[in-house]
């Protein structure tokens, strides 16, 4: 297992390098630059700005400079938020996005899995249809509709919760967390239900029941673990996405996370900020996919990565 883990981590480096290279050149291809504005600057002032940020150098030099910079974990100054470095912005925004994302994720698992399992046990009965219809609605109503509705009801009409703004207090987190968690609850419930139904029809469950094992043991010890495999695969990329924030949720609740930097960075041609958040997201994706694979091995004894045939 250790051998496998080391190999996986080593392979992450070329993947990241490829990602950095693609992102670096792609954002530069986009027309317009960081200092294009409604009011065009005199050329000599533009030249000063370009020189300050080394944008006057050939692109390959800039690329090399950037690689050297990030090797020292320095993501450089933001080109749009001039008072901050990208490290500052991520350091201030990431804890906010991580907190909200992690709470939403846990909530989604705690609610989604039981609903899915429960629906599976009542397959094709009214309870199943009801649960899955609600889940379908949860998936299809976009968060930019849910969030304003929640604000209208809980902040404006009832006045129970703030309409937005950020502090590390429960009252500020309730609505954003609900908005983030709702579609995930729905996804997880649907995935759990489908995979649980499949497992319940498999022969080893039939065997377990035939042996007279208590139904509770059958379900919790034998059925649930393999049924969770698809949920785990979904969680890898989903966790990376939710922990890096959501543009829509951050915009609507005015939350200073890093989700909006993906869009703002690109729109402002804030090259360094875009690179910073892309690299962070890339690292999280790689990390979570790795964790998913480890969880797989734990949940399904048939998967063993140290087996030379699988690992090679």
């Amino acid at each position, binding site marked *: 297992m250790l051998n496998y883990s080391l190999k996986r981590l080593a392979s992450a480096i070329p993947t990241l390098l490829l990602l950095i290279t693609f992102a670096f050149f792609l954002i530069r291809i986009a027309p317009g630059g960081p200092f294009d504005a409604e009011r065009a600057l005199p050329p000599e002032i533009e030249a000063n700005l370009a020189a300050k940020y080394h944008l006057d150098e050939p692109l390959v030099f800039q690329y090399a400079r950037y690689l050297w910079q990030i090797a020292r974990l320095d993501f450089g100054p933001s080109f749009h938020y001039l008072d901050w470095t990208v490290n500052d912005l991520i350091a201030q*925004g990431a804890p906010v996005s991580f907190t909200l994302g992690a709470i939403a994720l846990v909530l989604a698992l705690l609610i989604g899995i039981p609903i899915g399992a429960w629906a599976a046990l009542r397959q094709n009965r009214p309870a199943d249809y009801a649960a899955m219809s609600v889940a379908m609605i949860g998936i299809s109503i976009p968060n930019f509709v849910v969030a304003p509705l929640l604000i209208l009801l809980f902040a404006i009409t009832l006045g129970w919760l703030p309409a937005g703004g950020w502090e590390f207090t429960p009252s500020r987190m309730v609505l954003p967390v609900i908005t983030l968690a709702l579609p995930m609850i729905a996804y997880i419930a649907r995935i759990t239900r489908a995979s649980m139904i499949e497992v319940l029809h498999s022969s080893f469950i039939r065997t377990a029941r035939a042996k007279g094992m208590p139904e509770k043991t059958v379900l919790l010890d034998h059925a649930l673990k393999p049924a969770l495999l698809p949920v785990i695969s979904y969680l890898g990329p989903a966790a990376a996405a939710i922990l890096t924030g959501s543009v829509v949720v951050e915009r609507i609740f005015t939350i200073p996370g890093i989700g909006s930097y993906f869009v703002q960075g690109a729109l402002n041609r804030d090259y360094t900020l875009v690179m910073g958040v892309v690299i962070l997201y890339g690292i999280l994706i790689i990390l979570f996919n790795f964790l998913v694979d480890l969880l797989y091995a734990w949940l399904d004894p048939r998967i063993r990565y140290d087996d030379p045939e699988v690992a090679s």
Partner: protein
Amino acid sequence: MPLLLAWSMVSPCGAQTLHRGLGPEPDALDIHLAQSLSALNVLRDLHEGLVTFDARAELIPGVARDWQVSADGRTWTFELDPQARFSDNSPILAEHFVAGWERALDPVTASPTVGLLDVVVNARQRRLGLVEASAVGVRAHGPHRLEIELIEPVPWLPELLTHPVTFPWPGEPPRFSGPFKLVERVPGSHITLRANPHWREAGQLALAELRWHVIEEPNVELSRYRAGQLHITETIPPGRLDWLRRQFGDELRISPYLGSFFLVFNHRREPFANNLPLRQALSLVIDRELLTERVLGAGEVPAWQLVPPGMPGWPDTDPGHALSQEQRIAEARRLYRQAGYSERRPLRVELRFNTSLAHRRMAAAVAAMWREHLGVETRQVNEEWKVFVANRRQGRITQIVRGGWIADWRDAANFLQLFESDSPLNYSFWHDDVFDELMARARGQQGEQRLATLRLAEQRVLEQHVIIPLYYYVSRHLVHADVEGFEDNLMDIHLSRWLSLR
């Protein structure tokens, strides 16, 4: 639920903290690097220049108690208030202004707004690195006297001195020359300011604390206002004016603003280069009243001119057009034919704008008017912001683009400079010797004579139909009934020092 209720008690609209909407995150709170409107609003609370604004945005003395101008209008002498102090109680001296201007002009600082100082002797040469800092026309004569030498008479100099790029530079550590000092800054969330006890008029300050909230979306800002989290909004969402009026009554403040919105022809390319009748025809058929009332509907004022009403030396209202809408359409049809177009040979044109709901509606309405009255086939091209400004500036593929200008200071030349041949702001690429000559002549003049020349220059722009004026901007805020001292004004500048909570 009781728990939730308890949480909501920490609602921020309490005691003596004023909550203001700011719009987007400021680009910088460094006086020499800041460009965005939101940054200027915060900087004017944190710092103070030689001159400042009263509640109606009229000019009043700031750090300077008094000033004199020489007879030729080129040398200004400012007497500094000896009471003026930074937030650490150290005195603000003339040398702090000189140091600030030196830093601004240093190419290493790469200040984007330093071009504003070009009217000062040798400022341009200094920022190009051609002369030493000591050659620049700003000098300290003793601790409390500052002399500024200009290359030409600049009647709007006092207003220029309200811009943060001209403010005293405190150096390190950061200190504040204004009514408030910075206590907290969370990017993407808020900026908290607290009263500066060492400010020269600290005794008159009503607010103990002030929080500017970063909110990009007007609809989100409205929600927070409705939920009681904001006292003053930066703007209102477009297209909901009637509902807002019913809902908020006197809290809704819509007021004229010194800004113009127009469409700009590219004079370097076909079909508009040297085709005055065609440009005129396209301008005449647009029904501005219909556009502002029915299409935009956020209080905008129909425009036929470039310089907005209320500008010193200009009338208080737009005189409108001499012809009725029917007569204008008939005249436009004649001109359209004269330009060589007809129903069988229609003009095909691209109207380019940056992606925004308001611009999309404007473009659709304009295109419909052109088609209905002239048969013009318009392709509406909306582009992402940076793509749009880059294309507009290069002028290689543009035909008609969205344009506009908001006054930096109350002077008509601020608008007219857009059309000078060598201006980097001239995305019309109009090159007119008559206009350039008028602008050059105005530079040497003063008073009413100068204004008369500037009016001729504006007339030239309008006669030549360089642009299609569409409307004048209005400022739009929601101001809570508890707020006192918020006065509508043409510059839409509302320093927090004048505000208080009932």
